[in-house]
Each structure stands twice: as structure tokens, then as C-alpha cells.
């Protein structure tokens, strides 16, 4: 996260490879389920033996004695509808919810976040020297209306994309944050409205940042959990 500061996001998870290295982020939407982005995974039937999610700690690489850390193996990956670029990761056991680990809400189907809503991104990714890269960083971004964003992107915006406005200070997600949440406070609850996807440049000051619009895929998410 570029232009952010250390913060707390108890639904943000760190996805780690077999060598225990963080490589992407995710969001805990059910005790057994994490949402992330397809871009981070080799295939829809990847064998994720040895891959884990890490929750409950603000540190990217906590010491072995970190009391609140939960490391849970990933059992399976389920890819979302083609253009969604979403994946759901089934955990090998449920996460334990506590003050450090919480579920983020899912939006109502097809819900549109009102323009100007201040939302928050979180991750352990690249800070480009703007914050301490060893802890979880968060940053706030205002949602841009679909129409405005579409104009700014000269009509290239997809319905499955959600935009936040560029900030002069250069605030945004970067490598290592992909798959993490864009969370918006709605009715006093934090709701997963967007998933961070790779862009060609971090924290642009001249273009809106794009996220996967989760509300378009809530029916799929519920179906996967149910099935």
C-alpha cells in the first residue's frame, strides 16, 4: 500500500506460498472462505498443498511466538465467473474469529457504492518507502461514480469494475496487495465492495484505480459456499 499507514483490518489475510513467502492478499468472508484474485494463482485447479493464509497478526512476517497469528492451509481454489477475475479459497479448517480476526460483510447483490464513499484498502504489499513495509498498512480512497470513471477511462470501464478517485498524494495498492480488500463502511459495517487487482502502475495520481466489483458476484459467492 503506497501512501498509507499502519492500521488494523481483521478480515485481511496474507496468502503465503510453500516457502512461507507472502505473495498476495485476500479477505475473510466466511470462517472457511477467503476471497482473492485469479491473477495470483497458476490455474483454477492448482494444487495448493503447502499454501497457507495467515490471519490475526498485523506483521507481514511475525515471529513464531505471535500469540494471535493463525496459519491455515488452503484446501481448494474455486474460480469465479470468467470475467470476474475472482477466486474463492476454501480453508482446511475454519478461522477462529476474535478481536484480531473478523469476517467482512458481503454487499447486497448488484449494490452500487454511492460515489464519494470513503473506502479503505489494506495489505502487506510494496509501500515504496511511504510506510513501514513489515506491518499491515491501510489507506483511504474515495469511490468514484461509474459514469465519471468511465469518462476518465474513455469508455473502457467494465460493469465488473469499481473505481476510486486518484489522489494527488499518490495513494493506492501495489505489488503484494493484489487480492486484498477495498472495504467500505455501510450501515456501520465494513463491507467488501472491491478486490484489489494488478494495475500496470501503483498509486497513480492521474487515473482512477480499478477494483473488481464484488456486488456483481455475490450470487456466485453464496452459491459456492452453499454447494
Amino acid at each position, binding site marked *: 500500500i503506497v501512501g498509507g499507514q499502519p492500521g488494523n483490518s481483521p478480515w485481511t489475510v496474507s496468502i503465503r506460498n510453500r516457502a512461507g513467502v507472502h505473495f498476495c492478499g485476500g479477505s475473510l468472508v466466511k470462517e472457511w472462505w477467503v476471497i482473492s484474485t485469479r491473477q495470483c494463482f*497458476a490455474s*483454477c485447479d492448482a494444487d495448493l498443498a503447502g499454501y497457507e493464509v495467515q490471519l490475526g497478526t498485523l506483521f507481514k512476517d511475525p515471529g513464531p511466538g505471535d500469540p494471535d497469528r493463525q496459519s491455515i492451509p488452503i484446501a481448494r481454489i474455486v474460480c469465479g465467473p470468467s470475467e*470476474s477475475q475472482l477466486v474463492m479459497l476454501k480453508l482446511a479448517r475454519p478461522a477462529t474469529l476474535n478481536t484480531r480476526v473478523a469476517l467482512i460483510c458481503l454487499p*447486497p447483490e448488484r449494490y452500487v457504492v454511492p460515489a464519494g464513499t470513503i473506502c479503505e484498502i489494506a495489505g502487506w504489499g*510494496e509501500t515504496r518507502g511511504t510506510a513501514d513495509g513489515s506491518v499491515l498498512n491501510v489507506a483511504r480512497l474515495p469511490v468514484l461514480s461509474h459514469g465519471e470513471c468511465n469518462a476518465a477511462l474513455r469508455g473502457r470501464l467494465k*460493469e465488473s469494475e469499481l473505481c476510486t478517485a486518484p489522489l494527488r498524494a499518490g495513494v493506492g495498492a501495489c505489488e503484494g496487495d493484489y487480492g486484498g480488500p477495498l472495504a467500505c463502511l455501510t450501515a456501520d459495517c*465494513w463491507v467488501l465492495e472491491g478486490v484489489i487487482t494488478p494495475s500496470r*502502475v*501503483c498509486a497513480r495520481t492521474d487515473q482512477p484505480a480499478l477494483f473488481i466489483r464484488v456486488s456483481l458476484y455475490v450470487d456466485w459467492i453464496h452459491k459456492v459456499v452453499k454447494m
Partner: protein
Amino acid sequence: HRSPLNDFQRLRATELAVPTEPLAVPTELPPLEWGSAEQCAQRCTASLTCRAFHHDRQSQLCQLLPWTQRSPHVRLQKNIHYDLYQKKDFLRDCIVGDGTSYRGTRATTEKGLRCQHWRATTPHDHSRFLPSRRNGLEENYCRNPDQDKRGPWCYTLDPGTRHQSCGIKKCEDAVCMTCNGECYRGTVDYTESGTECQRWDLQHPHKHPYHPDKYPDKGLDDNYCRNPDGSERPWCFTTDPGREREYCRIRPCKKRPRPLNVTTSCFRGKGEGYRGRVNVTVSGIPCQRWDAQTPHQHHFVPEKYPCKDLQENYCRNPDGSEAPWCFTTHPAIRIAFCFHIRRCPDELGAEDCYHGHGERYHGHVSKTRAGITCQPWADLTPHVPQISPVTHPKAHLEKNYCRNPDGDSHGPWCYTMDPRTPFDYCAIKPCSGSSVPSILENTDAVAFEQCGRRDERLQRKGR
């Protein structure tokens, strides 16, 4: 520090089926004994007749066996309760050193002559090498009872040729390696200095992260030389406490394999075949050239990785990481993934199209976008359906055709024949021009429970 298991090759969830034909060997099964796999290995090694053993991990019981999968009429079969350990010497098709310990079943000489049985005295009479319980002179198999440096030999059935070498290859030559040996699955289990390798499933004498279960695709079997981490060559942890790991000597194949899945404008899988020219990280930092050692020192020297195309400073994946990556020119950032390179689409081409959300799709496509065959709607396996012709009689749930009985906004789907994948969408796309209503709406009353709350105090405190 060597484990007695080092002499054995393990097959998981497998047992040796009792010989089905009346055989010279006793067919009553030896009694079960209590012990760990290592203890059973010790007993089997000490026994003159034992060649393999079953080990039941649950009950810690084992059964010593006088035969292997190579024995006549014996066959392997699945048994989730047992692991089967067989003495390597009886299984290997190559020799270690001069092949004195070779106990394979090769019975022809290097010139193709059939071997004479060791107990026979015609056409060649001999008394020096008669079969005994110890010397392994069995049947007419090639053996090396006199440590001949040319390796195992035998008397031949050709009256004109008393004996001849069998020309069995050394293990380091038997299976060659391509590229950096990532795919090497041969049976060399010693390093280039001759030190025996430590088993990958053991954590002594050296603790290590390469558990076979964690790296199922790296072939970390027994204590064979492997290359799970993108090193220059296959290697192993050694049984010498003073030397953690060492390369092994494996013959390189003459032919270099054609690179698989070469892509340039996107990457597939982990991007090991990516040969494009992206050379900047997402945060705008130029990548370091692969043939440079500053600001970051590394072992990925281009000439040592001829198959990985470590040209210039392009994003590449020479070690099987999650995605193409590069060393960065920023001294404080060693490595960066190049996730911003587009992923190649990996779905089947659409075979049909649907209108709206496809609720009225009645076509005959019956496979998912990943190419998996659909489960018939009326079947109960591999997935017990929550939606079926009984629950949705008007949804035309015929055979295993893709349908959209629940009005899924992402189109027709089906239960799949893959036990791991309950359902998936199909290789069908929206028909061009089909007007899917703009589904983005504003919803007024929104309420949530049991989610999305956090201890804001933590937020204020920061860290």
C-alpha cells in the same frame, strides 16, 4: 546419521498382493510385527530373506516380505492403510558403483546373449559362483559376485561365450536431466562427493522446508537427488551432519527440450514459459539485468539456466515461483513479482451462446469452461445435487446439458464429474447483442449482521 530407510523405496497407500500362482516361495504371509518404519527397515535389512515390508502408519505394525513388485506373479495394489517399502537394490534398473549390490532382474548380456542360471553347470560348468542365501545369485539374473569393475555379468547360454558383462548403466547415466533437472526423477541418491542423501521425508540430520507433502509436484521421493528450488542442478540434503546439502552428478541429456507454453503478451500458469519483454515492476522500478550482480547478488546466471531465457532484465520465472518475477534495481527491494503482466485466458472457447442469463438455454453443450464433463442432472454422484429434475421439473434438466435453473446471473452451469468441483459455468458465452439488463442498482435499506465490525481503538492506536 543414515536412516535404515535409505535402502528402501517407498510407495504410499500401496501393498504387494500375495502371489496369485502356486509358487516356490511360501505364500503364507509372515506375521505382523510392531515398530516404526525405521525399525522395520532395520529388521528387514538384517534379514536374509526380507526384500520389502508393509508399514501401517496408524497401528505402527509392519510385515516383512520375501518378495518385491519385481517378483514373478506379485502385483501392486492400492491399500490406504499401508505404505510399501521395497529394497532399492531389487528395484533399480541401474547400478551404484560396480553394481555389487545390484539385485535387479536383467538376464541378458550387453551383446544380447541370454544368461545361464547360476545353479546350472551347462553349457558352462563353474563351481565358483553357486547360489547361496547370501550372495544373491538368483535365477539367471546379472550379478557381480566378484566385484568386477565392469559391473554385473553372467555365464551365457552361448557355448562360445563363457561369461559376459551385462552392460547395466550407472544410475547417474541411466536417466539424463534436461535444463536444470527440475523434472529429473531418476534414482541417484548420492552427491557428487559420494555422500549418501538424506531422505526428503526426514528432518535429520538436517531440518529443511522441502516436505514431500508440501511440494507434491517436485518428486521428493525417498532420498533421491531432486531440484525443487530452481537450483542449477539436482541436489539433496546429505547424511553428513557437517554438510547440509550438495549437488549430485547427473548426465545432462543431449537434446534440449523445446520450451513449453511459450507466451509473450501474457503468462499462463506460473509463467515459466513467459518470454515477453516486461522489465519494470508494478511500482515502476526497472528490473535488474540477470547477468548483473548489483545491486542484488544471485545465482540465476543466464548461462547456467539455458532453458529459462534470462535475457536482459525481463520478468522471468526460473524457479517455479507464483508468477514471473525479477530482481529490482532498488537496493532495498530484492525481488518483485510481475503480476501486472496479463494472465492468458485459460478457458475453452465458447461452443454456444445464450440470451439474457441463459434461463431458457436448451442447447446441448455438456462441459464446463475448463473442459470438465457435466454430471447428469438426475445422477447423485459425484455430487448430490441440490437442484434436479425433481426439484425443478420445468427447467429442462435433460441429461448433462448445461442449464440455468436457478437464474444464475453468470449464465448456464452444471454439476461436474470432477469430485473436487461441485459446479462450474459452461463453455457458453452471452450471445452478442443480448441485452443483459444493467444490473447495477442502488439499494436503499441495507443491513448486515455478524460481520464487518472491528475494534476501532486498534485503528486509532495504529502500531
